[in-house]
């Protein structure tokens, strides 16, 4: 999704990691972790993509993804998936790779121990903790710590922050009306903050939020945290 629709997120991620002196590789054989197939009920297809994932990244030291929901899929659901399709080889490979798959802000703060990476971004920003980052990966305030350290950034608290934006992958299409009703509350809360930018660590949720903001003609922008961290304006 970031590769195809939001290349700027991937670019920002590379820039941030390289600024901190990491050696970044992008194995071009990678495609998708299979989350959409898994969550829509297509477990065999999801298992195929899981097999591809563990093969493509098998030799990497650490796999950093700028998406909490993709990391949560690998961490929480790959073991389940391997068991469901009764693939013990996959189960072993999953066990080996899971500790090495981390979300970007988790990598920066928890593994790298940095919060200030020298970014400068002048705007009033509110942060939406996505469900997978909050309840799945339990990132806590790692993303917030990074944002607070950004020079020029005015961080405003989002009311009802821990509530879902209503995206949920194919849920947003299968149950479009309910999804939109949930989004309404999220947007109401975002608008109430007076922020110019809403940031998150999942571009998928930001597509939902941004799609709703765009439809109502709002000027509030949606940005992945990586994009803000890469900024040095």
């Amino acid at each position, binding site marked *: 999704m970031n590769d195809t629709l939001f290349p700027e997120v991937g670019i920002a991620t590379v820039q941030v990691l390289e600024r901190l002196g990491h050696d970044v590789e992008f194995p071009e054989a990678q*495609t998708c972790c299979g989350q959409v197939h898994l969550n829509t009920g297509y477990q065999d297809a999801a298992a195929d993509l899981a097999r591809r994932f563990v093969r493509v990244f098998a030799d990497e030291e650490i796999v950093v993804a700028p998406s909490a929901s993709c990391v949560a899929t690998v961490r929480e659901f790959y073991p389940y998936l391997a068991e469901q399709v009764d693939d013990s080889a996959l189960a072993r490979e999953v066990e080996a790779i899971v500790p090495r798959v981390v979300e970007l802000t988790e990598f920066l703060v928890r593994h790298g121990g940095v919060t200030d990476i020298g970014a400068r971004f002048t705007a009033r920003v509110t942060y939406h903790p996505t469900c997978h980052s909050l309840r799945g990966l339990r990132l806590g305030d790692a993303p917030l710590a990074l944002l607070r350290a950004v020079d020029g950034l005015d961080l405003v608290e989002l009311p009802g922050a821990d509530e879902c934006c209503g995206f949920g992958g194919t849920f947003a299409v299968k149950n*479009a009306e309910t999804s939109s009703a949930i989004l309404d509350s999220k947007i109401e809360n975002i608008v109430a903050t007076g922020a110019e930018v809403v940031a998150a660590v999942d571009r998928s949720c930001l597509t939902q939020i941004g799609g709703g903001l765009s439809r109502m003609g709002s000027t509030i922008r949606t940005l992945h945290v990586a994009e803000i961290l890469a900024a040095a304006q």
Partner: protein
Amino acid sequence: MKSGFPQAAHVALRDTQLRRNLALATTTIRGRRATVTGERPDWEELRAAGAAIKRRVLRHLDRHLLQFEAAVQQAGGTVHWARDAREANEIVVALVRRTGALEVVKVKSLTTDEIGMNDALAAAGVRAIETDLAELICQLAGEKPSHILVPAIHKNRVEIRDLFRRELGIPDLTDEPAELAGAARVYLRERFLDASVAISGANFAVAETGSVCVVESEGNGRFCTTLPNTLITIVGIEKLVPTLDDLEVFLQLLPRSSTGERMNPYTSLWTGVAPGDGPQEFHVVLLDNGRTNVLADEVGRQTLACIRCSACLNVCPVYERTGGHAYGSVYPGPIGAILTPQLVGTAEAGSLPFASSLCGACGEVCPVKIDIPQVLVHLRGRATRERASGGVGERAAMAVAARTLGSERRFRWARRLGRLVQRPFVTDGKIERLPGGLSGWTSTRDLPAVPARSFRDWWRSR
């Protein structure tokens, strides 16, 4: 596949009064729960204990059930076994007929709703009277409950006043809560004094002693379990706990999770028959009705640990918007979305596991640590496999997507194709309208167009 959740939600979402009632009620209970669970330093340990006890019971359910049966008999009660709803209703109807009663009073019970017992009794000429205030409101309105714990959560007090004026014949009733409760009280007291048979469910059944436990707020349940001569209790086989000591854990977990109270006002516990005191005839109907099938599924079986607290409903963003009726099931909300399809099958309830954004709030509050998101995903797999979800279009799209994502070369080509296909839909770099299955997205949200350069294009050009 019968008409599913999205169609029912369509109706519910348009009811603005319903949405206001729900938002207010769920937000209030949510806050109360957070306060009383947060004040317990050992809340996580209590959850872990509850989860462990329930899982142990399920592992040895056969043994506990036989032990429970023997203990009930020992205490002077009779135990009946019902494979399904039909058998359970036949047993209950026969027992009521034997007493000659034409009216029975009922303790609030989801299990009796699950088997459609009121209808079965009505067909046999017996009128079942709900005595829980909210259940009574639903019964008088001819509606089904919409919440596990607060069955009339979809109604506000003005709506209830109008209902009571009409159904109880009190034309000058106001919408003062105390006055509404008073009207129900007068009506119900007469029913309690007349009744010779009561029917209840059970929150817990203790294998060691044969005791049954009902937890409630109003005390009306206690009238039912003490005044009539005959008491019939329907118990889902998953409601067993091994010993009385185990209740210590659940009687702390349940009120804090459900009503947000430290302790519920009435906890009734009875064991068999006490000569000269309370019901002199006591029957237990042990109900399977699909539960052993749930038990057979290694991932799905954790669902049977549920103690029906409804904390998952109150934190669910979907439930808060649609209410309980949209689920078309006695068990609504996240727990209903995983329990109902397992009890009745995916052909009947295949859309329910999809009625969730998988936000995870439900799993986080569950007092017995049911991993609801995991079971939802698990059941989505089953529904799709059993062709109870996903039309021809979705299956084709998913197959094409899987094949495309299976090769880097095809993935690159698909992106180029996407750039071509999107052309007629793109204005100012965004898509405002899409056809077919994707129109649901664009009915309320824009979508960014696929940009000229992908990340991997950038990566290669470095």
